[in-house]
């Protein structure tokens, strides 16, 4: 019996040493550029398979007023820097305009009142942060598809880019502003709206006033706040650092359906 224990002890010590070797190697694993293809393959698989199961464009589950969570944590920018936004805010966005341009036949410049005159959709949905928390809120806004139809996309338009008023990092070339992008599959979904109302009131500043994107089949960072310009483009590599969004430029997944 004692022989067994000592042998077991020896093996345990050996495997502990092997384990620590394995663990110290894990960073080399996660940082190795040679393994990037594994992660890219995973992203591609998620995009392709989720697009397949969503090909009928089903709506996400909508909840009732009773389901709205008592609070809704604002994430990212809660108050954009700079006097420009402050001025817009104190004038209740009277001078704010939304531009719709890029690969469109009829570029638009719209005031908040003009947007509120458009067909509206109200939906109570879950907001899922990629960090793991969930809140439920009610959103009122104009379907993105309505704006895009009014502006009339040209046939070569493939992505819709949302330029925002909040500057995340001060960069000399002014490329530190938040931005996001969708392809036409998500842009045309009925629940993809530009919201100006939240929980029955005007959209609060902390949640992106006067206008924010709701793209309900994606996690939180796709839901651009403080949207000021919607640009239709054929490719994303000429905008920002070329990955399709502020967080995407910093390593996050462009496709954020999971």
């Amino acid at each position, binding site marked *: 019996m004692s022989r067994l224990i000592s042998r*077991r002890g020896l*093996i*345990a010590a050996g495997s502990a040493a092997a384990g620590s070797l394995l*663990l110290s190697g*894990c*960073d080399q*694993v*996660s*940082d190795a550029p040679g393994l990037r293809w*594994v*992660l890219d*393959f*995973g*992203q591609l*698989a*998620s995009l392709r398979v*989720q697009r397949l*199961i*969503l090909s009928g464009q*089903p*709506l*996400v*589950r909508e*909840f009732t007023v009773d*389901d709205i*969570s008592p*609070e809704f*944590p604002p994430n990212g920018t809660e108050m954009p820097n700079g006097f420009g936004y402050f001025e817009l805010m104190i004038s209740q966005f009277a001078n704010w305009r939304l531009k719709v341009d890029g690969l469109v036949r009829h570029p638009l410049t719209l005031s908040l009142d003009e947007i509120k005159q458009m067909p509206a959709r109200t939906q109570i949905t*879950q907001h*899922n*942060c*990629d*960090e*793991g*928390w*969930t*809140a*439920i809120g009610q959103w009122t806004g104009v379907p993105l598809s309505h704006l895009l139809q009014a502006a009339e996309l040209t046939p070569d338009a493939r992505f819709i880019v949302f330029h925002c008023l909040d500057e995340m990092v001060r960069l000399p070339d002014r490329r530190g502003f938040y931005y996001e992008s969708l392809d036409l599959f998500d842009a045309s979904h009925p629940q993809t709206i530009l919201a100006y109302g939240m929980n029955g009131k005007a959209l609060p500043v902390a949640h992106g006033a006067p206008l924010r994107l709701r793209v*309900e*089949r*994606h*996690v939180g960072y796709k839901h651009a706040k403080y949207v000021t310009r919607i640009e239709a483009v054929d490719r994303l590599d000429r905008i920002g650092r070329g990955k399709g969004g502020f*967080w995407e430029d*910093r*390593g*996050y*997944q462009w496709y954020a*359906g*999971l």
Partner: protein
Amino acid sequence: MAVSEQTSAPEAQDASPNREIIYRHTVVVRATHWINALCLTLLLMSGLGILNYHPALYWGNYGYQGVPSFMSVVSMRDPESGEPVGVTRIAGWSFVTTGVLGVSYDSEQRAVGRAFPSWLTLPSVPSLALARDWHFAMAWLLVANGAIYLLFGVFNGHFRRDLTPAADQLRPRHILADIWDHLRLRPPRGEAARRYNVLQKFTYIAVVFVLLPVMLLSGLTMSPAVTAAVPVLFDLFGGRQSARTIHFLVANLLVLFVLVHIVEVFLSGVVNGMRSMITGRYVIRKVGR
């Protein structure tokens, strides 16, 4: 016939008359076993890396900082000494877990506030983007690997032959005896080691057909794109945050399974066990040697 694989006559006779070598694990079982081991390890570590960004678990449809949590890990300062303290709260109970959970130490012994220590997460430095990338890539590998294993298990007969308890194993006396053997840390020997023991079969069935499918489905319930296509997942788990909590609890059960599994491998002979899972060959020792 495939049926003869596990219980076949000695494939290669050893010189010693009280040793017999059987072919225990087919190449598909061995390959999927090790891919599975790799996936589960990296899924656990990247999962904890994700959980570090919001180390609190809730029940129901919503949950965020401020909502009462079922379990949470927090980093705080001792009001008297000012020292960092890690606290783990589970269903109303609080435990000081400084050193592992809440507060852990970096390579220079400086206290760092984080729920799970860097040696348990992938990547070890905080990166939600990379942790998510690894988690989802390994989930796809796990699913592909699991699909191969399931197809093989059904069509080759592995499930029927090796995992389904035999009639004699299902007798209450046999099950009680097997429980007693496990409690005394006595692995089956001789002829009894030819097949999986009954608790082992129950455990493998539970892991393969209950725990791993629940992991997969609760993980999918956290994807807003998947729940758009399959909203019934919300009803199955009682909400997205419940699914997240269940995902974590079942991950704990899988860790417990792996720990017990490794202990059993050591108890029943680590060299023989490892060899059988690498080469397929397993030595049966005749009882009463």
